[in-house]
């Protein structure tokens, strides 16, 4: 048995190795970390940072150019301050996708673990469901669901979460399948541990590394779907400040005032890329074996 001193030392070494690999991938990971943290801070303190009310219209000051006095990023076609809308858009997008990712992670990985653990009819049913859902193009399913459930933030989070569930199920399922046959799981089974206990004591922790990774990555993906829905007019609604909506709104004036549409799109790209890169780096640092699988 390892003493607690030993354990501490090993944990410290593991942490060191984690950070070495995580940051060892060059400048891009660091930049992405800064971007992600930046947007999170902006989202949390949006009401404090934003110079204007994001929904306040001003018909006298429509389409002010970038760099205008009092409106750093200009105004849109209703005269709303673009910077304030971008700041509040970060809050909307991150809240929605964080909630969506959280609930789908919990539900999805639980279903995946169940499917992997009980391979019988229950497992088959869950896996079949995943196949069916994936046969319907994801964006179209989300559009239909969004219309059914409504376009407030809560409903959209549910819709986004449903879209993310198959990924979690598959990940957890394949993880469980590969560790289930390990001797120590058989051993715990043989000494008569309860199934539920085995699942959550032993299987869940083993999926944890991949869960963290896929969580980070799907955070970005979900933001992308959210903005696509808003862009198509079936997601979050005006006058809420959401990046996808802003792009849609600015599209009409792309010829004359490109920045109104291009700025929010740039924010979406930055945050999605940042989360994807961080997910990649996490994967390499947490579990190099996952490379190529996630």
């Amino acid at each position, binding site marked *: 048995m390892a003493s607690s001193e030993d354990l501490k030392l090993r944990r410290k070494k593991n942490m060191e190795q984690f950070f070495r690999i995580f940051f060892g991938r060059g400048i*891009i990971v660091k930049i992405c970390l800064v971007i992600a943290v930046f947007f999170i801070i902006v989202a949390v303190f949006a009401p404090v940072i934003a110079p204007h009310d994001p929904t306040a219209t001003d018909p006298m000051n429509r389409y002010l150019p970038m760099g205008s006095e009092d409106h750093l990023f200009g105004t849109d076609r209703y005269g709303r301050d673009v910077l304030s809308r971008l700041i509040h858009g970060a809050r909307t997008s991150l809240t929605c996708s964080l909630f969506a990712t959280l609930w789908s992670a919990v539900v999805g990985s639980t279903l995946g673990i169940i499917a992997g653990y009980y391979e019988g009819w229950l497992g088959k049913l869950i896996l079949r469901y995943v*196949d069916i859902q994936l046969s319907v*193009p994801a964006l*179209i399913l989300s*559009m*239909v669901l969004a219309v059914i459930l409504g376009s407030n933030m809560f409903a959209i989070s549910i819709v986004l979460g449903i879209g993310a569930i198959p990924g979690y199920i598959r990940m957890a399922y394949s993880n469980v399948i590969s560790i289930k046959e390990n001797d120590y799981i058989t051993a715990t089974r043989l000494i008569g541990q309860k199934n539920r206990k085995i699942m959550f004591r032993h299987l869940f922790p083993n999926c944890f590394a991949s869960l963290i990774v896929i969580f980070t990555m799907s955070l970005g993906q979900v933001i*992308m779907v959210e903005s696509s829905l808003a862009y*198509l007019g079936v997601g979050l609604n005006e006058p809420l400040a959401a990046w996808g909506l802003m792009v849609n709104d600015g*599209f009409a004036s792309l010829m004359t005032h490109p920045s109104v549409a291009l700025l929010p*799109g740039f924010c979406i790209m930055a945050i999605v890329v940042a989360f994807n890169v961080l997910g990649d780096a996490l994967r390499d640092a947490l579990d190099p074996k996952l490379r190529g699988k996630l």
Partner: protein
Amino acid sequence: MTSYIIKRVLASIAVIFIVSIFVFSIIHLLPGDPVVMALGLETPMEDIERVREEHHLNDPLPQQYITWIVEMFHGDFGDSLIEFRPVADIIKERLPRTLAIGIPAFVLGILLGLLIGIVSAVRRGKAIDQTLTFFTTLSIGTPQFWIGMLLLYLFSIKLHWFPMRNLVMPGESILGYLRSATLPIICSCLQMMGSISRQTRSNMLEVISQDYIRTARANGISEKTIVYKHALKNALIPVVTVIGMNLRNIIAGAVLIENIFSIPGIGVTMTNAINNRDYWVLQGCVLIVSFIAVFGNLVVDILYGYIDPRIREARG
């Protein structure tokens, strides 16, 4: 191999069948009465009732479903509530436009993705690998509607190289098609290219460190043959799965692409049908699109068996 293919085909038919139930139930959950939405709120009650009767909308749901399926086998997808014409005609008219963008984008995405993936795996760690990897990371993380807009802004509005809208079909004029379809195709293939090249790169790197590659080297096989024959065929196996998934994404992407480039294809039709609750159009389109996705997966499965003899054996 034959029994393997037959098994796969049967499984796909089953999936299509279940998907049709799934699609039907979800669409009938949509709020709002489609007939009222189509005819307007002031329409007299008896007119509404008559239209509902005509479209079998008063039947119980299971019976509606059966009617739909049975008539579909006779080539009748129902009529559009808005356009007052058969859904089959609408699909026949618009699907080719979607395919005119989707198929070239799909092929281009695979080819470019494989090429980039192989190049960055062979030159791993070098400047070209880092540049390409950065580029693919961007292409995966950028929303398609925004890339489309950026392309439009740069190449149509600023440089006037390509028209902003009005897709010309290749049947009408090849040159016109090339001019009008280039931007949508590029926009549509970027994400797929990114995910395929990522997968190819990491598979190649994994395969290169396998024992059988060491054996090949120890037997004096040249590095080129090792990379392009021995490693590639193994690395392609998981990539084939990614290609299958991307077929779905290309079709889903059509919704966005057609919206940006004003192409009246299946994607735009579906968006409108959702907003207008045009049940039969929506059901028909979603089913056709799902059918393409499932069919694509079937092809992928068969390819899989062709590339990997172990799968053929195990599933055949």
